[in-house]
């Protein structure tokens, strides 16, 4: 945390496929993430240790026997961000699990990318996640595949929670003798019962917690103890357990070392920039200014993060998740005193849903109001009725293959209303049950028809809490369609914000990446 004074250098704002330096008013506070935790020295050893010494569970070898049905589910392309360098942690864990399975003589093994209603992963993406060896051994025989939440023959209905929430997950996973879930716990929201209850679930199941009411009652969804999203997932986890599905949960945590050299200045505090950082900033900002946006996107999307394993825990879902959450907090928790009138943030080029894709305006909304806004425990960084100022170019752009229903959501739904409740009531069902979106989700690489709605619901709590949202440097037309106000410069945005919160507002800047979780007292 830094308080801006006259000698403070300008502050770096991520700005889509680029970044800008902004002068924050004197007295503003900048919240920085903690330093990266040290990485485990012997990663493979740590993984093997976790499998052999799990918490609240027998060691994995004891759970394996010849003739059994084993399913390994793993987190999809939305994690981690940015994608990590090879070998991916999923590959390391899966290889370790497969070694033990082979030793135990297990030969009925399926690997499923637990993508819920996300888009299917391409061959290249799957190869990156699980490694060529695993891919070539399983994919050609149809034993490594993407989960299909719209295949009625591949789903199993397990029952309802005490609150009437239906639980329907992958049939293969439900009918296996053991389900091993390989997780990457990037933020506090991930993992736990949410892994299986969400990652391997169908729309029928997901709609019970992916809705406006749940999101408005999760303060925030990053804090499992005050998150209705988690309560619902935990209730569902209970149903899954009671219906006899045996889960061996493997959760991994990463440090926050987000950018490789020479981009590592992006995650440093400006006043600590070395001469090399300053020249890297100059060189890259000049180069980016001369690069067409399409190419800039390609450059940024090809960035692989140097982050790596800080911990791995295996065993019973809840016990494992308690340890995992503690590790995430150790890396990400920042204490902040008091709320501000205005919260500023620079939005980066990537969100969980545009890896190798296009950051469309709906994802901009979701990243700012859904993810960044909710990265708090206790109270939001900005007071109720305060103003959120986000910096992002917000281009009117969409990936036609990955986000077809987003295009229609933007053109047909947001053109009519931006009110989450109204949107949910009037439009959700028709998009969710649309035959064409279903076809594209199942056979192409499209996010499910209902997915843009979830993006909008993710921001529902922020929309309710905030007095206004201003986007700096965005495509004015697209920003207005989102229901926000466009501003050319941060100075203009602050002027506009003072109309809402009054003159001389207090200001907090959320300096991310790296990711962090603020504890606001």
């Amino acid at each position, binding site marked *: 945390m830094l308080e801006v004074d006259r000698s403070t250098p300008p502050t770096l704002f991520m700005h889509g496929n680029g970044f800008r330096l902004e002068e924050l008013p004197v007295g503003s506070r900048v919240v920085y993430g903690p330093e990266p935790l040290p990485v485990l020295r012997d990663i493979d050893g740590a993984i093997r240790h976790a499998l052999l010494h799990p918490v609240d569970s027998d060691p994995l070898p004891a759970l394996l026997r010849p003739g059994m049905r084993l399913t390994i589910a793993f987190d999809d392309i939305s994690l981690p961000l940015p994608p990590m360098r090879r070998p991916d942690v999923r590959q390391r864990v899966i290889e370790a699990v497969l070694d033990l399975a082979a030793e135990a003589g297990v030969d009925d093994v399926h690997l499923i990318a637990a993508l819920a209603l996300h888009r299917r992963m391409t061959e290249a993406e799957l190869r990156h996640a699980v490694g060529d060896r695993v891919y070539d051994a399983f*994919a050609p025989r149809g034993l490594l595949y993407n989960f299909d939440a719209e295949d009625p023959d591949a789903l199993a209905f397990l029952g309802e929670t005490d609150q009437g929430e239906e639980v329907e997950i992958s049939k293969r996973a439900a009918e296996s003798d053991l389900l091993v879930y390989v997780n990457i716990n990037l933020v506090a929201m991930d993992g736990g019962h949410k892994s299986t209850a969400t990652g391997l679930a169908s729309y029928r199941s997901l709609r019970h917690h992916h809705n406006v009411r749940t999101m408005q009652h999760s303060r925030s969804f990053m804090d499992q103890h005050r998150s209705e999203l988690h309560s619902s997932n935990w209730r569902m986890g209970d149903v899954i357990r009671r219906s006899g599905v045996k889960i061996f949960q493997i959760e991994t945590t990463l440090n926050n070392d987000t950018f490789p050299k020479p981009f590592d200045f992006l995650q440093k505090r400006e006043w600590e920039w070395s001469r090399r950082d300053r020249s890297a900033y100059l060189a890259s900002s000049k180069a980016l200014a001369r690069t067409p946006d*399409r190419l800039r996107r390609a450059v940024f999307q090809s960035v692989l993060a140097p982050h790596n394993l800080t911990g791995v825990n295996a065993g019973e879902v809840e016990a494992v998740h308690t340890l995992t959450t503690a590790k995430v907090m150790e890396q990400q928790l920042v204490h902040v005193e008091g709320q501000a009138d205005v919260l500023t943030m620079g939005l980066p080029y990537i969100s969980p849903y545009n890896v190798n894709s*296009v950051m469309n305006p709906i994802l901009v909304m979701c990243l700012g109001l859904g993810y960044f806004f909710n990265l708090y425990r206790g109270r939001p960084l900005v007071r109720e009725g305060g103003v959120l100022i986000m910096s992002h170019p917000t281009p009117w*752009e969409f*990936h036609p293959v990955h986000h077809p229903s987003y*295009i229609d959501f933007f053109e047909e739904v947001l053109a009519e209303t931006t009110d989450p409740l109204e949107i949910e009531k009037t439009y959700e069902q028709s998009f969710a049950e649309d035959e064409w979106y279903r076809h594209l989700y199942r056979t*192409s690489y499209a996010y499910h028809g209902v997915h843009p709605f979830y993006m909008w619901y993710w921001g529902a709590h922020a929309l309710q809490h905030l007095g206004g949202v201003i986007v700096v440097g965005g495509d004015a037309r697209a920003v207005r369609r989102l229901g926000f106000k466009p501003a050319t410069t941060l100075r203009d945005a602050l002027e506009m914000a003072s109309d809402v919160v009054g003159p001389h507002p207090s200001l907090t800047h959320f300096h991310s990446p790296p990711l962090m979780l603020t504890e606001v007292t």
Partner: protein
Amino acid sequence: MIADALAGRRLLVTGSTGFLGTALVERFLRSVPGSELVLLVRAGRRSTPERRVQREVLRNDAFDHLRAALGERFDDEVARRVTVVGGDVGTDGLSLDDGGREALASCDVAVHAAAAVAFDSPLDRAVEVNLLGPTRLAQTLQSVGAGPHLISVSTCYVAGNRRGRAAEVPVFDAPFGPRPAWREEVDAARRARADTEAESRTPPLLARFAKAARAELGAAGVPLLADKAERLRETWVADTMVEAGRARARALGWPDAYAYTKALGEQALRETRGDLPVTLVRPSIIESALAEPRPGWIRGFRMAEPVIITYARGLLREFPGIPEGVVDIIPVDLVVAAVLDAAARGPAEGADPAIVQVASGSANPLHYRHLVDLVHGWFSQHPLYDAKGQPIVVPRWTFPGRGRVQHQLQRAVKVIDQAEKVLGTLPLRGGQARWAADLEERRADAARALEYVELYGAYAETEAVFAVDQLMARWSTLDAVDRSRFGYDPRVIDWDHYVTQVHLPSVVEHARVRVTAGGRSGPSRTERLRARVLSPERHLAAFDLENTLVASNVVDSYSWLATRRLAGADRVRFALRTLAEGPSLLALDRKDRGDFLRHFYRKFEGAPVAQLEEDATQLLSYLLVTKSFPAGIRRVRQHRRLGHRTVLITGALDLVVERNLAPLFDDIVCARMGTRTEPDDGRGPSWNGELRDAPPTGEARAQAMADYADAEGLRLEEAVAYADSASDLPMLEAVGFPVAVNPEIRLAAIARKRGWLVEQWSKAPGGPRPLLPIGPPTRRTSFPTRPNPVR
């Protein structure tokens, strides 16, 4: 007293659906109570004479006054006093039935106001109607045993292009000038028609029409091209006859075919009238009413009006004319009054018919410069507005010679023509095709200006002064009551008032032009058309695929499929080679789409069926969806939501579209390729590269639509079709609601002309733009498939 003299009389009127005729009927019904009318009216193409009178005469706003005065009695009054008779002055005997002849026989006065008034009528049409019309009417009246007073409406311009005073004397009595024999002129005109028809059917001309049709429509299929060529032939015949009329008229010293045929018509009537009493009324240029039935009343867009509006839109930078010359304009109500006066007065004593000129030039001249100044001043104060809501500044004319203006405009049209031709050879569509639209609009503007200069330039250069001695003599005998009720004294016109307060406001009102500033309000034309297309009453929507829903074509999909299993450099080489064939393929495509597809699909010969089918499922993501127009896909789905059936009609292969696009369409009509099992090399069956049926292109597409609609019990009039190219014209024309999507130049031009909805759809902004149509590399397996593949 005019009204008293006419009371109880029966008046025959021809040409009652025209400008002067309508005003005459209205005035007669209103001002001469107790009188009756017989209207001789030609049957329309789809309506009876009675219906024409109802729609074209009685519903005209000229009758507002009378309607208001009579209230509910209007219809009864009209039914009692007006008899409609079917007949045509363009044929011998007027094509009358017995009832018609009887009605004609009962008339006391006949006013012949029927004429082909267009200055650019084809020669033979002008001859039949204007030259022979009065004679035929006179002969028919005599043949039915009637001898009414025949008042034949002619024109002052029978005097021809002469300078100075033009007296009220028979045409051939005027000094100088040729005296052509009218019977020979009639024969020559009829012969010219036969000759022109014959010439239009000679091989060189037929070849020219066929070429022009192809240039306009492209590969639209034989039936449509043949139809277009035939229409071009008819247009050519008509144009040639118009030119023949203009040329003959000018050769004899008249400004155009209208004046020429009217002049000979007077002479013919004079020779053939027998003992029928005749009066000739010669108005000059008839314009909007001074006072009756209301100030500014006008019908039809006539001579000066289009010129004025074109000027006000800033499109006539120059116009010929002699500034100090006289423009002879006469308000319609003055002409009507003069005709009724003549009717009341009866025929003149003596052997020769009385001739009355109704004109303003000698008694109350309006000089050309004064008129132009008035118009300029008025439009400077009351400008029209362009599409963006900006006022249009009107140009000042400098009165150059007609030759110069004509020359400039001809050059402009020629340059634009050339540019259009160049543009037409380029494969442009969407936004670029809009250049062509601009050019076309400018060409139309220039061509229209040229037409006006050629047609009407002569009238602005007339130096004849039409004498009105007869008219004034008659005026002097009227009492005060008649003078106030049937005024025809041209000296009462205050030109400043008439032009700025009466005529121009009326012209602008009739022209339906933008007279207010600022952006438009209410839905745009496109929005209205779109609403009609998306109305629940429609029940079938047919879509073309390539460049309508997807920015791709058979070349792309072929290249994509063919390179899928090639290694690195070979893939690029292959795709480049295929693309290099582009221009020759484009040429083939323009000639005949069916041949193009056949040529192309032969390349698939020998490809294994199973492999191609598997790869084709990947094509959905990497080609079809990547290059799709999201708005187009959305439109398909909108139609489905409205309960319309959706059909894809495409020349693309079944393996490319059938499974991939199944959820969008109720049915898919596409090209289907045959397979063979020989030789059995263990790879299973392979494609034989030949289509199983004729590919659905051109008229086959329209036929496919018609068959489909028939089989499903749907009506094509309620169907919508979306397509992008002129080769889809048959399909677009077959339905009630055609939509041109990103049209290429030719289709864009056609869509504009016919008022079709045009949609500009584009690929998703920001989506991937693969440089070459090649698939992503695949290793041992094509893709991770699920244990249970879809569908």
